[in-house]
């Protein structure tokens, strides 16, 4: 099913995108409201929560360029040493910019 990108068509597309995205924001909490939260379920969602971050970052590192790798490595080191997020993030971004500048 195709929609022409006329003004009306685009409005319909954007509205549907908004509805689909809102459904993802609401769906998880909605489904969980029917689940009894046993210690096992709580353990599942807590472990899942910290795994979300890893599942975003690791493929990003594998698919990224040298700048991306430098950014993630730098953030890791500074974060583990200082335990302070802002310097770690800033150093990571700077590392990406530097590596890309040098790699031309």
């Amino acid at each position, binding site marked *: 099913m195709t929609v022409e*990108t006329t003004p009306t068509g685009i409005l319909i597309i954007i509205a549907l995108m908004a509805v689909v995205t809102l459904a*993802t924001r609401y769906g*998880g909490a909605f489904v969980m409201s029917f689940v009894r939260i046993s210690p096992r379920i709580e353990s*599942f969602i*807590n472990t*899942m*929560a910290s795994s979300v971050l890893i599942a975003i970052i690791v493929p990003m590192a594998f698919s990224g360029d040298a700048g991306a790798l430098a950014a993630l490595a730098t953030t890791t080191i500074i974060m583990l040493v200082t335990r302070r*997020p802002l310097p*770690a*993030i800033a150093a990571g971004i700077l590392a990406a910019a530097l590596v890309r500048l040098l790699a031309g």
Partner: protein
Amino acid sequence: MSATPYPYQWQPARVRAEFFRLLPISLFVVAFGAAFGLAAVQEGLEPLQALLMSVTVFAGASQFAAVDMWGTEVSLVPLLAVVFAINSRHLLMGASLYPVLRELPPARRYGVLLLLTDANWAVAAQDYQNGRKNLEVIVGGGLVLWLAWVIGTILGVYFGGLLKDPQALGLDMVLGCFLLAMALGGKKSPRTLVAWGVASAAALAAWRWLPPNIHVVVGALAGGVVGFFWLETGRVAKPRPDPEA
């Protein structure tokens, strides 16, 4: 009424504090928004249409993917499938906050979730792991992130030429570095490290061999399975030396 079923102590002052806490990261989000606005008008959207999308969808990666599929005609089902796949991580994020969210009345609960996105969720999830219930960051942080995304889009559609190459400045790595810092700042038990290993392997395998855009959900669920079968024993958190790699 005796005991309220919704005991969450909502602190309006903290909403404001969390707004300012996420202000620095939001400055970078402005740059992303500008990149999106530029991409959208280059693909043929009118400025107001791009703006409407940022206001109502508020999910960067899926918006980039959507305008990538733009043309004189758009295949609706594939487009919405991509949007759903990229944003399906919200399902897990919402579910993971449910133990806190259920302490809010439903109307407010779903009001809070309107503003759920990666960065403010990461803060709330990290706080929850450290024993603090913080839904105010979803609202305060979400508002500043949303404003930044909308302002960035406006800058991009009208003055797109100002920021031609956000990658050269490393700006594409802001979210990655932010999420990584949040992950490393959380509580790390041997169980978490095993879950991370499983999640990494599953996410990479899904990224390599499964249809695109579902690796986050696959990896996160695989990590969750570790928690399902391996329960943390003992309530008292003892300080542990970092296990050697």
